[in-house]
């Protein structure tokens, strides 16, 4: 038991399993999986599909947080990339003739540019990360509104609509296609941080940025890279979100999702102060959040109490993750045993 709790992935896994067990007893048809139109169909499949955008964001956010930073602009970047991609698909930006490739390239490029901007502000101008990314968080939705001229872009009639819809809501080998994107990105990122020195530099930067710089780590460049990765992830996530609803809704796409992304990282057991990190457990954290959302809908929690229920679960989860709380709990139980004996 002691050995297990050492792993960052332990508590999110426990939370996920507990939620599933709850559903097994209290939510009817939760685990029912059938085959519809050649793909799997059920609540679990929904969780896998709907978690994808958040999972991508949490991967980027983990790297940023590992350096001791934070990126609260991801929600706005989601809106920008979705707006740009949908506008191109729907031929509103005329010169691309509704090309899918152009939509993806420019959508992702927008995210990379946003990330570079954040990285530039943090590493070169030395603005505190939360303030630096706050700028884009506020301005980003405005940029997205400019792209779509303040309207919701619906791509129902676009020629490449089917292909675009496939990215966020299509099925491959019976499973949501989006989760394959997450899997590829996750493996790629794990290779990057575990098979190269990059991950080590990240952790050293998060633990003590001055001493890492003095020992020759190019801390500015690393910061620039992680914010750019986070921007890229946000753009990819924005494309999945807009694809899933066949349209770009600049007011609501990715609204407050930065908070969920940060929460995924925290549930994953990563310290928000930076340092040692685990991408996999952040992704597990995202799964916990999405499982909670789906549970709330499937179980039928009244709308007025949803936020309260979610907050309650998160508080319990965080309490168990806290070592000092666990120790106090243990001590209290030991004390009780002594008394009863």
């Amino acid at each position, binding site marked *: 038991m002691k050995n297990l709790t050492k792993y960052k992935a332990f508590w999110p896994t426990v939370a996920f399993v507990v939620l599933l067990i709850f559903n097994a007893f209290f939510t009817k048809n*939760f685990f*029912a999986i059938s085959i519809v139109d050649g793909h799997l169909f059920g*609540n679990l499949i929904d969780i896998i599909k709907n978690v994808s955008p958040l999972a991508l964001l949490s991967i980027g956010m983990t790297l940023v947080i590992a350096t001791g930073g934070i990126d609260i602009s991801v929600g706005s970047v989601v809106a920008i990339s979705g707006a740009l991609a949908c506008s191109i698909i729907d031929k509103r930006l005329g010169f691309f003739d509704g090309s899918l490739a152009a939509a993806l390239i420019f959508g992702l490029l927008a995210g990379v540019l946003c990330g570079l901007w954040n990285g530039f502000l943090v590493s070169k101008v030395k603005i505190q990360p939360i303030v630096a990314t706050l700028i884009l968080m506020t301005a980003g939705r405005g940029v997205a509104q400019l792209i779509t001229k303040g309207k*919701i872009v*619906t791509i*129902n*009639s676009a020629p490449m609509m089917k292909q675009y819809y496939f990215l966020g809501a299509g099925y491959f080998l019976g499973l949501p296609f989006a989760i394959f994107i997450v899997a590829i990105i996750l493996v790629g990122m794990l290779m990057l941080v575990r098979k190269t020195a990059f991950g080590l530099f990240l952790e050293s930067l998060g633990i003590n940025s001055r001493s890492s710089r003095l020992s020759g780590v190019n801390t500015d460049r690393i910061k620039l890279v992680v914010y750019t990765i986070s921007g890229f992830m946000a753009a990819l996530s924005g494309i999945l979100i807009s694809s899933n609803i066949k349209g770009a*809704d600049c*007011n609501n796409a990715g609204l407050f999702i930065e908070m969920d992304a940060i929460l995924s990282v925290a549930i994953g057991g990563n310290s928000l102060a930076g340092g040692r990190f685990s991408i996999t457990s952040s992704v597990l954290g995202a799964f916990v959040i999405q499982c909670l959302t*789906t549970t709330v809908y499937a179980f039928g929690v009244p709308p007025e109490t949803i936020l309260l229920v979610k907050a309650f679960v998160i508080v319990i989860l965080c309490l168990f993750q806290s070592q000092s709380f666990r120790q106090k709990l243990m001590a209290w139980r030991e004390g009780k045993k002594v008394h009863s004996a």
Partner: protein
Amino acid sequence: MAKKFFALIVVLTMVLGITGCGSQSTGNQQGDTKKTEESTEKPKNEKLVIGFAQIGQESGWRDAETFSILQEAEKLGVDLKFSDAQQKQENQIKAIRTFIQQGVDVIGVAPVVETGWETVFKEAKDAGIPIILVDRRAAVPEDLYASFIGSDFILEGNNAADEMAKLLNNKGNIVELQGTVGASAATDRMKGFKDQLAAKYPDMKIIASQTGDFTRAKGKEVMEAFLKAYPGQINGVYGHNDDMVLGAIEAIKDAGLKPGVDIKTVSVDGVKGLFEAMAAGEANVTVECNPLLGPQFFKACQDLKDGKTTEKWIKSEESVYRAETAKDDLPNRKY
């Protein structure tokens, strides 16, 4: 430390001084204009002169409203003074004060928030200029404004229930996608629908109701969960706005069912996307929440100028659009 503190005090007094002077001078100005108006007996404008304090451009719906007002003014040859407040109440108040000084006949305002309007509405009343509230209400005594032009959300809920009953032959299970919890449009559309079911359609039942926050993404996610919790039991979906139903339509398709056929849809708003869905046979009915208030607004203005009284609540002209006519309606949809 002491120095910093001192500097802070100095800055604070300066700021206070400036704002103090500012409010004082505007106060004087108001007094002056009031005096001149009293002495000269406000001259009658030949043409209809209207001031309109719009909120801003936060949504497609509001853009359509603005467009309707500008277009109607041009058509009628009204001298319209239009102000865009960019979502700020102080800008709207400033605009109203300018309109008062310009001596317009009627002032139209779409209040960005409910409270804080008494003073400026009173100034307009003292200057003899009636106020018409457009599409949003203000928490002021009834004698401070002439009319409110806007939708009756409860009626929209009633109409939606009637339409659903026609689609389902008065019998079946309905799931409801609510708007944002606490929004008046959501509470009233829910109440209107529920009350109508209770009064007229005992065999129709809401089996599940969940908030979709007026967004397409949440509408889809909630509908996905409904379809799994009640497999094969859902006959109709009622959405408090069109966007949520547009999301739900995708979820229904994913479940291998035909939206508009296997599961009927009724929603409120009348946005273009839903007309496209109806034309494609994937949605059934939308109950319009009309933003094109221009014609009704200027008619009320003319009445007020001619000395007639207008109704306190002028309900906006709204209609119900069904899939059968969607193809013909589509080219006329502006928003």
